[in-house]
């Protein structure tokens, strides 16, 4: 029995791979497997090449593997696109014409022609045939599949449902004939949830008391907004699509000013438009929580692909100087808990808090232990105002008690101009110095609360690898698989402010390599600036695709 199996399905937009994923991930999870699924899709509605990678395992394996154990290709283009992920052991499945056309090089592989066009009958929905086939491969209980299909697509009408059931059955029958692909099950499905990065962020926001979401659609960040928009009533949340990202960020600031807990979700281009508002948040000391799902730039770049290229953007976003916090979760659990935490930090310190993810992270599904939160973790900092309330009262820690309109006897004056303690505009020489100092004081406290990076690997390492955000699981698995016994891995889920005592990790290493998905090694550059006594090398990938485990292993061997 296999420990885990990497299944790759390729086709074109419009063939229903999304539906296949919607159906098969919960089915596989309920059957007792651990799952990890990632998307490699083109920015188009029809045609092109879309690839779904589903890793089915008996234990938690969330690395992005290149090698495919089974490759189901539904188009010639998809076959060519993913051919570099095939090996001599890969089982090839697809319509006979595609296998024939592409088969020459792979004639020694096990190949199975997929039948979806019975003679004299209508062609069957190919995504349903493949779903049935996958279920057959894993010898799943067919009734599980049938029930899930009925519950997901029952509202499409009986005729459609019957056609789907027939296609599933035809596929199942074909899958059952393929031997040797059984994977061990962990069988604790009930204790585990299946979700993607967008959902983890959205639910983390809910857990953090978020009750206001404003956005403008932009891949890959829209998933968070859609998830919350569809549940706005249940969560008691105001969700509105604004006319642009400038308005979305502005509305968010207005909402915080009036006492809401607000979030915006966007990608790089939209974020660039929000920078002016972020600066306003900095000056007016209005809290903000911003989710930025990165994709490759500059400009429109690769809209549906992944990159870690916006760290410097977030680090320096907004004109002028003001404190901020940047989180970059490495797992869905972290995404959930850090998003929740973002609201409490933003509220407490009245600063913008950024959650930096990317396309790979938000679109990837995984099974995880049920998340725990009941709101008791949250702290709320709004005070009732007294007459002559001073919004920007100079305090020792830099934080002035936050009042909101309509709550207490005072009025609340917030201001994007430099201001006196009441919030009224001033150009006074003393205040013009004390106010920036007051704002920046918060940075010291925030630095003291910085998250320590997570360590794994060999305690007596010679080579220290560093990664941040979404590359965690893949880098970790590469370290585990590597034959080297001198590797340590440090994962940062908070990128700013950095904790002070990192030199103890760096000084033990002969060599430090920062793994990240951008062109210039942005995090390496940041570390170099703050820990100049060390030298930070880079291991980079920047073609819009996530690192493969094998790719990192190979580079590690060559270090």
């Amino acid at each position, binding site marked *: 029995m296999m420990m885990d199996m990497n299944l790759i399905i390729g086709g074109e937009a419009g063939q229903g791979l999304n539906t296949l994923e919607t159906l098969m991930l919960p089915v596989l999870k309920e059957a007792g497997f651990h799952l990890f699924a990632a998307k490699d899709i083109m920015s188009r509605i029809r045609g092109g090449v879309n690839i779904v990678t589903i890793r089915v395992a008996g234990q938690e394996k969330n690395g992005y593997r290149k090698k495919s154990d089974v490759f189901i290709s539904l188009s010639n283009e998809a076959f060519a696109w993913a051919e570099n992920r095939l090996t001599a052991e890969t089982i090839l499945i697809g319509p006979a014409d595609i296998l024939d056309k592409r088969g020459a090089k792979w004639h020694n592989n096990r190949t199975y022609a997929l039948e979806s066009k019975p003679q004299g009958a209508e062609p069957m929905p190919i995504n349903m045939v493949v779903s049935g086939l996958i279920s057959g491969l894993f010898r799943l209980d067919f009734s599980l599949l049938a029930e899930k299909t009925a519950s997901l697509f029952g509202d499409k009408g009986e005729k459609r449902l019957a056609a789907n059931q027939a296609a599933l059955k035809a596929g199942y029958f074909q899958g059952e004939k393929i031997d040797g692909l059984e994977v061990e099950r962990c069988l604790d499905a009930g204790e585990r949830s299946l979700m993607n990065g967008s959902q983890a962020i959205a639910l983390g926001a809910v857990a953090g008391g978020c*009750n206001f979401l404003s956005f403008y659609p932009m891949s890959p960040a829209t998933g968070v907004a859609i998830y919350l928009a569809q549940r706005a009533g249940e969560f008691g949340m105001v969700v509105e699509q604004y006319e642009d990202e400038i308005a979305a960020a502005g509305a968010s600031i*207005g909402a*915080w000013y009036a*006492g*809401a807990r607000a979030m915006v979700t966007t990608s790089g281009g939209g974020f660039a438009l929000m920078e002016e508002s972020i600066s306003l948040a900095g000056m007016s000391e209005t809290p903000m929580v911003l989710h930025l799902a990165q994709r490759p730039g500059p400009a429109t770049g690769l809209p549906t692909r992944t990159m870690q290229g916006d760290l410097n953007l977030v680090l320096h976003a907004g004109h002028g100087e003001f404190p901020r916090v940047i989180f970059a979760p490495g797992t869905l659990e972290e995404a959930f808990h850090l998003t929740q935490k973002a609201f409490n930090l933003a509220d407490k310190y009245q600063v913008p808090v950024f959650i930096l993810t990317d396309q790979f992270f938000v679109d990837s599904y995984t099974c995880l232990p049920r998340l725990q939160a009941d709101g008791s973790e949250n702290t709320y900092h709004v005070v009732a105002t007294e007459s002559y309330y001073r919004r920007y009262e100079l305090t020792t820690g830099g934080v002035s008690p936050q009042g909101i309109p309509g*709550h207490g006897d005072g009025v609340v004056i917030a201001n994007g101009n430099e201001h006196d303690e*009441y919030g009224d*505009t001033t150009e006074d020489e003393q205040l013009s110095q004390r106010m920036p100092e007051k704002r920046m004081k918060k940075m010291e406290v925030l630095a003291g609360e910085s998250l320590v990076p997570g360590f794994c690997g060999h305690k007596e390492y010679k080579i220290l690898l560093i990664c941040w955000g979404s590359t965690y699981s893949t880098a970790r698995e590469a370290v585990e698989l590597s034959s080297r016994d001198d590797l340590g891995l440090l994962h940062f889920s908070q990128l700013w402010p950095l904790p002070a005592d990192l030199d103890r990790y760096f000084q033990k290493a002969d060599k430090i390599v920062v793994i990240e998905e951008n062109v210039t090694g942005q995090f390496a550059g940041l570390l170099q600036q703050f820990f100049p006594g060390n030298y930070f090398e880079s291991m980079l990938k920047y073609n819009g695709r996530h690192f493969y485990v094998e790719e990192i292993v190979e580079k590690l061997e060559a270090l």
Partner: protein
Amino acid sequence: MNTFVSTRPGSKDISWCPGCGNFAIRNVLMEVLADLELDPVDVALISGIGQAAKMPHYIQANGFHTLHGRAIPIATGVKSANPSLTVIAEGGDGDMYAEGGNHFLHGLRRNADITLLVHNNQVYGLTKGQASPTTMIGMKTPAQPEGVFEEPLNPLALAIASNASFVARAYSGQADKTKEILRQAILHRGFSFVDIFQPCVSFNKINTYDWYEKNTYWLKDHDQGNREAALQKALEAFPFPLGIFYQHQKKTFEENIVAYRDDQTPLSQRRVNVEALHKYL
């Protein structure tokens, strides 16, 4: 009666030019808010950037002096976080029609129950005399030395074409009538938009008090519920009609928000709905 006169130290030194129409608008606004028996703690003035947008510093009410052009979405955020507040977005013609033009259009569509006051002096004041979207063709400025050639924006026609729920034009030189328009605008349920003609004594030597007296007239026997008649009036120029052009009732943004359907609690008092959250964890 509540007073909206501010005694904060920053309210003493007002940075408007002597004779500026902003003084009259401020006085009218303070009187209307007091007449409506509103409490300053329940009123929020959200302004952009410009001379007009300094208003929150000279009135006793909640205020947020924000960014150029952005007052409308920020005010919308305030209102939808706490619908019990009286929210007024305020700024000049450059603020609302140039930098904030897109927000103006979509603010009309969204129909949040806020009031938008645009101090329209047909010129840029704070940046010293450049043309605004409502500057008349031919006016020469330091930045447009050959004279303005762009067609002036017609904000009222735009608003009526967008089926805005309350559209009016007032004139700062006639306080009583302006006060009545502001009163109705604040009372109106939905997005109420008032363009206020206002002389700029420093930078606009064409549209003076005298010019406005000669080139405006108050609407009489006008059917405020008739959109076509309103549009016709909005297209009139030299003289420009003043008054309420168009008003009608439609569902507000807040009334459309599902989170308020069964629960009027402002967002600041809401806590995590644990039951709903656990359903999805």
